[in-house]
């Protein structure tokens, strides 16, 4: 699934929901190379989705590019909570 350029956090959460809710999907691999898209938006959407929906399927995410450090900080903080 392709998010298109500069997706909002809301759109990213909906994308995750569509994939997770599909019974044929066993696991999710995500890749975010921040250009016009921002890694911090991606991380915030991911954290909120996981907190709200507690998905049981494994998710592996790759993240690099613009706002990568901020994105990693958000994920790290969420992990510590």
């Amino acid at each position, binding site marked *: 699934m*392709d998010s*298109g*350029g*500069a997706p909002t956090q809301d759109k990213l959460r909906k994308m995750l929901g569509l994939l997770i809710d599909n019974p044929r999907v066993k696991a999710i691999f995500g*890749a975010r*190379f*921040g*250009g*016009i898209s921002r890694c911090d938006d991606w991380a915030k959407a991911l954290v909120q989705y996981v907190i709200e929906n507690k998905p049981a399927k494994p998710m592996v995410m790759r993240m*690099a*590019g*613009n706002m*990568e450090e901020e994105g990693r900080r958000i994920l790290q903080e969420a992990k510590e909570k």
Partner: protein
Amino acid sequence: MSIIIDQNTRTIVQGITGKNASFHTKLMLDYGTKIVGGVTPGKGGEEVFGVRVYDTVRECLRAHPDATVSSVWVPPRFAKDAILEAIDAGIKTVVVITERIPVHDMLCVRERAREKGVMVIGGNTPGLISPGKSLVGMLPRITFQPGRIGTVARSGAITYYLANSLNLAGFGESTSVGLGGDPILGANFEDILRLFEDDPETDAVVMAGEIGGVYEELAAPFIKQMTKPVVAFIAGRAAPQGKRLGHAGAIIEGNLGTAESKIEALRSNGAVIAQTLSEIPEILRQKLG
């Protein structure tokens, strides 16, 4: 050297007060890009990260006559006007970040650009970068290193991954150009290949195309005339017919735009075809000895 932009290039930002444009104005300035002015109609006199905003491109160029490159970040329905305004005001290269510009608008823009000898890059381009010198657009700076490989791709993310794999192998880029993912583009592969062929600081070129349209096929005959090695990668080999893959232009319609057709055209004209981005450095090493 490098192509299109270097450390001396003066550039302006159209739509500079928008959310994405202002954020990336900051990132471009941090990189060292010389942004001399911005344009948003009705917001003349404001400032964005120290960059003065003007109401029109003409006004901006009156104050900064040395600006030759503009990046356009306005919403799709205003893009045609913004690009034509830049062309008519005397800008030489217009980098169109805006995605999903109406097809007829882009056709009109392309004709005007041809008449006036202006290079329009995009729409839906991530922009371009001459590493260490200048960045126009929103490519992530960490991915690029100065070097002697020219890259040209339709997709932004592929531009980044490609540079990443070149850099991990010890290569770098003279210039990396994103052509954009919309169906109608300004600059095409051949335009950029010609510039790389003439650039003394580029030793080889990597082009990354994708399914949809015929831009790759149209560029193929020029590759035969080139003295520099060209490595080509085509994204979307597994794409089914009729399914749009992310970009508005990335779609196989009937027999048009298949990966096979592009690979065949490029290969038969002397390009080396790479199956994956990660094998490109090894191919370059062999070609460059």
